[in-house]
Every structure is written in structure tokens, then in C-alpha cells.
């Protein structure tokens, strides 16, 4: 029998004969690997997942031309920087007079569907059959659910509402009509674009500075309360997840080391028998280390798989979007577990080496 074969046989037999001991060792390594994999996988994807939750806040950047209208070229530039994920809604504003009450109303011209998509938080009642969106205060004060007669100086029109909305902002005092109608009635082209940039806080910041640099004569203003809240919430949540998972991983690791060390110390008789039969310290060390490494490898592989499943499931359950496994974590998890197991099993061996085999065998 070759040396390698013998080693393999000793290792497998050791695990097989003491199945329960091998099993507890594998479980304790697997638990560490699982929790480490799950926490790191979630952490690596957290910024993106959490940032997505800020889409509902509406526009996070407002682009305004200082004088005149936004040129198609400028809008194309905005689109290029914002990317296909973001939303861009060009808006023009004018003041109209309601003909019966003589009240002044701010009228906005925009693509109504896109405007609603951008402001998902508005509560809109789709009660009308027209094309305009009427703010709640306008409806309350003037229209009461009916059409609106507006005069824009030279032109005038009957505005038929498609719905009425509550926003809690100045928009409640406004009426939004389709952009082409707005341009036809007022002759004004949009000078403002409401922009929602998607991404992590840093990506948004980068896009804002790119927009500022690419568009001279255009004011680019981030809606600071939104970007600031996003940065704070995303950053602090990441820190909490990192800190608590680090604590958990370290503590469970200690727990595992304690279990492992204990199980090696329990084998002092095996150790003594081997030495009594003529094994050198090196051979015994090697045997114990390979056994530990083998068990740790099995535990870590199982733990990695389970950790990926847990991260995937947490993503699905909490963010409605899966958190995908990170293959690059596999190697560190495997190596880390093996290294830990080696440390945990060799430290007690040192202790045992100082004792005479005969003493151990006698039960001292």
C-alpha cells in the first residue's frame, strides 16, 4: 500500500469511525462559511438594491436653462449621461387665467405618461376622459371635477382632465397638459427637465457633475434632500450590515475554534497510541492537520452553497429581486475555513506534544 493511499484511508476511516464527531466539526465549519458567504454576498449587492428603493421619490435632479428653451441637442446630452435607466421629463411652465374666476394658475406642459411614471408617489384619481392632470387644489378651488377654461393671453382653450392628483407640493396648485398642446397654446418650449438618475449615491453625484460640465448655460441642481437621505440611509445600512455580520462571523468563528480545539484535545489517546507506535511529531501533526483540512473543506463548500441560497432568498424576500451568488467569494471562504481549522487543530497538538504518550495512555 502506498503512503498516499494509507493516508487517505486513515483520514476517511477516522471520519467514518467517529461519524458524529466528524459531523459536528463539519457542521461548525459550515455554519461559519454559510453566515460569512451570506453576509458578504448581501453586503456586496446592498448599495444597488437599496438605492433602487429611492426611485419612488421622483426627480432627484432638476435641469434648468438659464435663458430660453432647452435645445434638442442639450436634451440628447442629458439622455446620454443619465443613461437608459434614468427618466427625463422636459417641462415648460406658463401662467394662465381661469376665465370665470379670473384666478391665475400655473400650467405645465409635459409628457403626461412620463410625468406620472416619474412621480409614482402622486395619488391620481382617473376620473376624467381628457388628457390633462389637474392638481388637487385647483380642483378643490375651481374645477370641482369639470373642465377648465383657460386663457393664455392671445389663445384660450378648454382643458379636459384625465385625472386629479395629490402631491403635497406646489404641483397641487398646477395643471399639467400634454407638451404639444402646451407649445401650441403658449408658443413656449420647455426650459426645465425633471431628471431621475438611477444608481448608487456616488454614481448620481458623478452624473450631476458630468451634466454640469457638459451643459454650459444650464443649471443642474440635485434635489438635495433626496440625494442626501439616500446617501445617509444607504451608507449607514451598509455599515450596520457590515458591522453586525463581522461581529457574527468573528463570534461564530471563535465558537467553531472552541469546538474544534475541544474535539482534538479529546483525541489525546489516538495521539498517544500513534506516538507509542513510533509516529514522529511531524507525522502526527500532518495527520491531524489533513483531517482538519478535509473536514473544513467539506464544511466550507457546503456552507458556501447554503450561504448563496440564503442571500438569494433574502434578496427575493426583502427586495423582490434576487441577490446573485458571488463566485469570487468561493476561494476566500474555502481558504479561510481551512486556515481556521488548521489553526484550531494545531494549537492543541502543541500542548499534547509536551506530555509523554505513556502518561496520556494511563489517563493522566
Amino acid at each position, binding site marked *: 500500500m502506498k503512503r498516499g493511499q494509507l493516508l487517505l484511508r486513515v483520514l476517511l476511516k477516522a471520519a467514518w469511525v467517529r461519524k458524529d464527531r466528524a459531523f459536528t466539526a463539519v457542521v461548525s465549519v459550515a455554519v461559519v462559511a454559510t453566515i460569512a458567504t451570506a453576509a458578504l454576498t448581501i453586503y456586496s449587492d446592498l448599495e444597488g438594491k437599496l438605492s433602487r428603493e429611492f426611485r419612488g421619490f421622483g426627480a432627484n435632479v432638476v435641469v434648468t436653462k438659464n435663458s430660453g428653451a432647452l435645445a434638442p441637442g442639450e436634451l440628447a446630452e442629458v439622455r446620454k449621461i443619465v443613461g437608459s435607466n434614468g427618466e427625463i421629463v422636459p417641462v415648460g411652465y406658463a401662467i394662465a387665467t381661469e376665465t370665470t374666476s379670473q384666478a391665475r394658475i400655473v400650467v405645465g406642459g409635459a409628457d403626461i405618461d412620463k410625468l406620472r411614471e416619474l412621480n409614482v408617489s402622486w395619488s391620481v384619481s382617473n376620473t376624467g376622459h381628457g388628457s390633462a392632470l389637474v392638481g388637487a387644489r385647483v380642483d378643490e378651488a375651481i374645477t370641482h371635477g369639470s373642465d377648465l377654461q383657460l386663457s393664455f393671453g392671445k389663445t384660450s382653450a378648454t382643458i379636459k382632465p384625465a385625472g386629479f392628483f395629490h402631491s403635497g407640493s406646489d404641483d397641487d396648485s398646477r395643471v399639467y397638459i400634454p407638451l404639444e398642446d402646451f407649445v401650441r397654446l403658449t408658443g413656449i418650449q420647455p426650459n426645465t427637465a425633471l431628471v431621475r438618475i438611477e444608481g448608487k449615491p456616488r454614481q448620481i453625484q458623478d452624473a450631476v457633475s458630468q451634466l454640469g460640465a457638459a451643459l454650459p448655460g444650464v443649471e443642474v441642481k440635485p434635489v438635495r434632500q433626496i440625494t442626501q437621505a439616500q446617501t445617509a440611509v444607504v451608507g449607514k445600512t451598509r455599515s450596520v450590515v457590515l458591522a453586525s455580520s463581522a461581529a*457574527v462571523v468573528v463570534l461564530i468563528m471563535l465558537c467553531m475554534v472552541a469546538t474544534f480545539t475541544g474535539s482534538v484535545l479529546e483525541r489525546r489517546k489516538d495521539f498517544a497510541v500513534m506516538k507509542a507506535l513510533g509516529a514522529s511529531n511531524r507525522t502526527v501533526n500532518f495527520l491531524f492537520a489533513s483531517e482538519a483540512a478535509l473536514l473544513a473543506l467539506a464544511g466550507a463548500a457546503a456552507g458556501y452553497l447554503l450561504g448563496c441560497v440564503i442571500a438569494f432568498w433574502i434578496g427575493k424576500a426583502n427586495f423582490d429581486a434576487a441577490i446573485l451568488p458571488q463566485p469570487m467569494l468561493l476561494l476566500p471562504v474555502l481558504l479561510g475555513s481551512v486556515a481556521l481549522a488548521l489553526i484550531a487543530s494545531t494549537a492543541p497538538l502543541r500542548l499534547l506534544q509536551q506530555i509523554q504518550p505513556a502518561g496520556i495512555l494511563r489517563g493522566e
Partner: protein
Amino acid sequence: MFLRLLFESFRRQKRRKSVALLAIALGMSIATAMIAVGNDIGDKINQELRSLGANLVITPIEDTLDVNIGGVNLKPASEGAAIPEQDLIKMKGIFWGHNIKGYAPFLSDERKIQTRSGEVNAELIGTYFAQPLHHGTEEFSTGVRSVNPWWKVEGEWPQDYGDWPAQLVPDVLAGSTLARQAGLNIGDQIQVSGRKLRISGILDTGSAEDQAIVAPLHIVQAILGQPNAVQRVSVSALTKPEDAFARKDPDKLSPSVRERWYCSPYANSIAYQLRQALPNVRVEQVRPVEQNQGKVLSRVTGLMLLLSLAALLAAALAVSAAMAATILERRQEVGLMKSLGAGNSAVASLFLTEAAFLAIAGGLIGFLAGAVLAHRIGQSIFGSAIVVHPVVLAVVLFGAVLVTFLGSAGAVRKAMQFDPAVVLRGDA
């Protein structure tokens, strides 16, 4: 006899017992820390979400429409209705008054501003910065500094004074855009409607206020000749995320259900209570803020909950494995006891009592360590402590006993299945 066995077992197997104790203590400190952090994260993130600003806005019901384009207000202050400033304190008296974290009233109008170099038109906005107020015995201060935390001031924030002595020049803030265009600097004096004002700081908000002069409310009321008047109030309230129940019309609910609705801190029920407290006002949710902060909050708390669950499970497994390992190693002891005539129940009760002692001691140590850990996490990330509720101690102790029993029970049963003779010979 039993007690002596127990005592000797602890005395003679110090190393083995301390390993088990360490494992339990570590597992339970994880449990304590994760429960504490998971439990408190909602409040902490809610505090962070305060930087989104007010989530309710109050306007007079008789008010005319706002005429506001590009941050420029085109509606004169004399037009439209006002809310009496002295009524605002009633907000603190509603059922959910403690959830009103702050409010800031606003009164504004366009005025000619005389600077050293000439005259510009700009909006004059009056508000509270950090106005000291009291409701009953409660002393607090409120204003834009807490309600709009994204307002940045270079220089000094002005003071809010109830009655400004006419001979003193009040401090105000100049918006950053206005300051740049009109060449205003910190320390400059300006004049509005014959009243001298001193610029104590430059305000940067990223929105309409950058083009305005922002002054203490009472100064603006005096300049505009509208004492006690407020056009709009931004309210920052701690609310519960909206659900289907929150959207119900309270006037159509049965009295008991209505009571439950009224006593839930939904934005809708707080708005309802504000409308009852203040006559003739409209209270509207700032929908982007109110509708989304609950969602963000539930995502973060949900994540922490799931992570805590995973960590608790891992801790339980680790502790069980450690317990199982320590007992499996003692099968010779089991064999010896059985060969001397001990019944299975006697052996099991000895082992489980040992486990219970270990669990309670480990649970206590773990609880203390976990509390310290949670405290540290809270301090370093949020700058405020995470306090561990005493109830957690009971939960942790119970969990520790449960987990050690589960870990021990299987191993004890396994150890008892062997024939004592075989075990003692060392063949099993």
C-alpha cells in the same frame, strides 16, 4: 449524591466546561446584539430619513392657488388666507403630539431689497430657525434647522426673537444665488421696506430659497404688516408606513374601528388630528416623502430581521454542535455510570442539569457582551446608543437553555444507546 456528581463534574472538567461555556456565551452575545440592533434599526434609520424633511404640509383652506414658477413666488402675501401663528402650538396637544418632531412656519412675499450697490427684487421669507417654545411643561425648540436638515449655512444662523428691540438690527440669511448676483457678503447690511437687516450667513438649500432673503418670522410679519400670520407650515412627524387600513375614511368607520385608526400614527390619522386641532386648514401629505420613507424603512428593517434570523440560527447551530461535541466525548463516563447501575433517566437528568447551568451562565455572559457590542455598533455608526431591552435577557436565557438542551438531548440519547461494556472497552 446528584448534587455532588454535578459539582464534581464542573470541578474536574474545567477545560471541557469552559469550552462549552465559551461557545454558549458567544452564541448568546450574537443573539443579544442582533436582536438589539434589529430592534432599534427602524428608529435609527427613521432618524436618518428625517433629512428628507417635512412629511406633512399645512395650508389655510381658504387660500388661493400658489403661483410659483422656477422657485419664484408670484402670489402677493396679501392675497390668500393665513393661519394664526399662535394656534400652531396646538399641534403638540394632539393625540400623537409626541410624534410631531418639529415644524416650521413660512410667510413670504416679494420685496425690493436695498443693498449697498443698488436694488434687487427678491423674495423675503420668514420662518423659525430654532425657535424656543413650550407646550404645557414641555420645553422644545423647532424650526428649519431641524425640519429641513439639508439647509446649509456658511456663517451664522440668525437668532429667533419674539420681540425684536427696534433699535437693534436683526440677523438674516441671504440665499447663495442671490448673494452671488447682488454681491452680498456676510456682515453686510441691507434694507427692506425701511427696515435695516444684517446678513449673518449665506444659505445654500439647492432650491428656491437660494434666491431669497430668509429672516426670523416675526421680523417678516412686522415688515409685511401681517402680525401673527403664517401662510404654510411644514411638519415633520414620525409616522407608521401607510397600509390599506390607513387609507380608510375615518368618518365611515364604526366607532371601535375608528378608534383603532385614530390611535395609529399613520400620516393620515395625524393629518386628521391636525385638522381637528387647527381650524380651517388643509393638511396634505408630502407624498414623495411620506409614501416612500415607509418603503425604504421596511426594506432596511426587513433585511436586518432576516439577517438576524440567519445569525440566530447559525448561533443556535454552533452552540448545539459545541454541546453535542462535549457530550459525545463523555460516552465512557456514560458507560461507567450505567455499569454502576445508573438508569437512563438519572444519566440524562445529570447531563441536562449540567447543560442548564452552562446555558444560564453562558446566557448571562453572552447577554452582557452582546449589549456592549450593540452599544458600540450604535455609537460608531449612528452616534447614538442602541439600548438593549431587559426583555431580551429573558429571551436570550430561554433561547440558551432551549438550544443547549436540543444540542445535548440528541447526543445524550446516542451515548446511552451503546452497551456500557463496549463503550468502556473503547470499541464504540
